[in-house]
């Protein structure tokens, strides 16, 4: 591997120390992943990241479970789990669902509002009709012809409005029903998607457990071998992460931010992959 520094200097080897530079670990990891970095920045000439490298590009990592580390190791070795086939099948079915994302929430909301408003209008007009009828009866009893005429005219007007609003309400009901039917279909598809998402997560968990079980003995050995290299006690997280790198089959460099090994060359030797030390 070759590291091209912005000042034009070039460093070469399986273990390269960059602790004298101010590069952040993320910058170095990004440069490992992307060999086409801009010319004025850090550029690293190295093999493409292997599978599993995304998890182990930078060590130590504390916020990760041994199961995930084991999975990264297994993937780097090209190992498969008994659930891989089903996982592939589920993932590809899930991918089909990702595109069918009909969202009816906006038209549904509009339809519900329209129906509620039409219902309110209708109720109001019905109330007015009832009160006008009452008034009409009272005018009739009093024999007030002018008032009878005026009330009757108003009643006709209100009745016309009522019939319009009724039509509107029925139309709103039908529209809402039609949208509800479509929304039900969309929910069925979301339902299936959620089921598949859960199934994928479960199979992945099973795969991780499988890899952790099958690699447990190797992990123990690697941890023992590594801790024998240092006289100081190292925390388990660091040791496990380093063990994972040692067990993984990487051609791309790993960025190490710990001082477990005396230098980058030693780290590369014991981790059995190119190492950039920060």
């Amino acid at each position, binding site marked *: 591997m070759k590291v091209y520094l912005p000042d034009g200097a070039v460093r070469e080897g399986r273990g390269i120390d960059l602790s004298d530079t101010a590069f952040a670990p993320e910058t170095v990891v990004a440069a490992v992943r992307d060999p086409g970095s801009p010319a004025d920045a850090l550029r690293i000439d190295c093999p493409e990241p292997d599978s599993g490298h995304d998890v182990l590009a930078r060590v130590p990592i504390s916020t990760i479970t041994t199961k995930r580390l084991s999975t990264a190791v297994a993937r780097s070795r090209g190992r498969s789990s008994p659930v891989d086939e089903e996982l592939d099948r589920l993932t590809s079915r899930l991918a089909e669902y990702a595109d069918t994302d009909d969202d009816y929430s906006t038209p549904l909301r509009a339809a519900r509002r329209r129906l509620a408003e039409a219902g309110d209008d209708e109720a109001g007009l019905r109330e007015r009709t009832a009160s006008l009828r009452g008034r009409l009866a009272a005018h009739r009893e009093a024999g007030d012809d002018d008032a009878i005429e005026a009330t009757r005219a108003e009643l006709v007007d209100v009745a016309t409005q009522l019939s319009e609003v009724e039509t509107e309400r029925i139309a709103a009901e039908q529209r809402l029903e039609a949208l509800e039917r479509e929304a039900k279909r969309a*929910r069925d598809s979301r339902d299936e998607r*959620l089921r598949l998402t859960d199934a994928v997560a479960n199979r992945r968990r099973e795969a991780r457990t499988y890899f952790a079980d099958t690699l447990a003995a190797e992990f123990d050995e690697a941890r023992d071998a590594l801790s024998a290299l240092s006289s100081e006690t190292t925390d388990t997280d660091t040791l496990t992460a380093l063990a994972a790198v040692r067990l993984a089959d990487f051609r791309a460099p790993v960025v190490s931010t710990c001082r477990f090994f005396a230098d980058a060359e030693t780290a590369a030797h014991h981790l059995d992959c190119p190492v950039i030390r920060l």
Partner: protein
Amino acid sequence: MLLVVTYSQAARTTLRNICRTHEEAVVRRLGRAALFEETELAAFLALRLREKHDGDVQIEQTTPFNEFAAVPDSVREAAEAYEARESPATPYSKFATGTDHPSAAEMRDREL
């Protein structure tokens, strides 16, 4: 009651959090769905969930089921009679044949 059903992992997680922090508004939790009380607070919580997750949230208002008001006698009696059948292995279609009990197909097409 308000029936709230979720259709994504994110919506399900939010629903779980709501149920955990607002036990008083929750009548029953059913995995990725929940029954809420019919209060303004419960409606507020349900609407918040829908604002956040849109189409991944379904809200329905339930009504108590009264079989004596909503269901014809024939259906209620058929259920009663079938559950009291002598041979547990008899399928309903066979049980109903030759009796006054409605067939499953007839019931399927009739709305309550």
